C-alpha cells in the first residue's frame, strides 16, 4: 500500500507535499509529481497537504492506472526534496478534469529550475 499522485496534480504542481514528506519519495516531471511506491511508507502526511487534492491512498478503487504511472515515472524522473515555485497558471488548472489526456508530459522536471533558486 502506498499513496499515489493523480490527475489533479497535472499543471498545478503545488509541491507542498515535498516539504512534509518524511521519506523524500516524490519525483518531479515537467508538469506533475509522482510518488515512488517502493519508498513511501504510507504515513499519510501528504494527503491533506495537497491543495489540489491530488494524492490518494492506493486502496481507493480505480487508481491502478495511477499506481502504474507513479511507479514508472518515479524511476525516470529526478527526486525532488525541496519545493519549487508552482506554475504561474496553476490555479487556472485546479479542478479541471481529464488533464492527463490534455497535458501530461513525460519530460523530467529540471533540477536547476530558476524558480527553485530560493525565490520562495
Amino acid at each position, binding site marked *: 500500500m502506498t499513496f499515489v499522485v493523480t490527475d489533479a496534480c497535472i499543471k498545478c504542481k503545488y509541491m507542498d507535499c515535498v516539504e512534509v514528506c*518524511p*521519506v523524500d519519495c516524490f519525483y518531479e516531471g515537467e508538469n506533475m509529481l509522482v510518488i515512488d511506491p517502493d519508498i513511501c*511508507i504510507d504515513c499519510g*502526511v501528504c494527503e491533506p497537504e495537497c491543495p489540489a487534492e491530488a494524492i490518494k491512498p492506493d486502496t481507493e478503487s480505480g487508481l491502478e492506472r495511477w499506481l502504474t504511472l507513479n511507479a514508472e515515472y518515479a524511476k525516470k524522473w529526478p527526486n525532488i526534496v525541496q519545493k519549487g515555485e508552482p506554475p504561474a497558471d496553476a490555479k487556472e488548472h485546479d479542478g479541471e478534469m481529464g488533464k492527463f489526456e490534455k497535458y501530461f508530459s513525460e519530460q523530467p522536471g529540471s533540477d536547476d529550475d530558476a524558480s527553485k533558486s530560493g525565490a*520562495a
Partner: protein
Amino acid sequence: MTEANASRSERRAQIVQKIIDKTGVDEAMIREVVHDFYAKVRLDALIGPIFARVIGEDWDKHLAKMSDFWSSVMLMSGRYKGNPMMAHMRLKTVQPVHFERWLELFRRSAVETCPPEAAVAFVMRADDIARSLQLGMFFRAGTEAEAVPDLRVVR
C-alpha cells in the same frame, strides 16, 4: 516568500491546529511516547536484541531521530528526512512476528502516556506504516500482498 506560499503555510498551520485540537498531540507528548516506547523495546526479549545490534550505544541519537520522525508524521513538521523502507529492507533477520511485537509495545506506550484520542492517532499511523514496511520487506513484487495479515486494530 510569495503570496501563494504564504497562504499555503497558513493553510498548513490550520491543518496542524486541527490535528492538535482533535487529538491534543504536541511535541512533548511525542517525545514521551518515543522515550517510553524505546524503554520498553530495550527490555523486550524478542525485539530488544535486534535494536541493540543496530543501535548499539547510540540511543540518544536514535531517540532524537525517532522524535523527529513522529513529529513529521503527527504534526507535519518536516523535521525528519530519511529512508526507513531501505533501512528496514537491510534487516534480513526481521520477520512479521517482530513487527507484531513492535506494534504491541507501541500501542501500550501510546495508551499509557497519551489521552485516548491521541493514542488512537498514534496507533493508526503506526499500524499503517508497519503494514507498508512489511509489504515492502516481505511481499514486494508478488501477488502475495493480499496475504499480509491485517495488523490494524479496529478503529
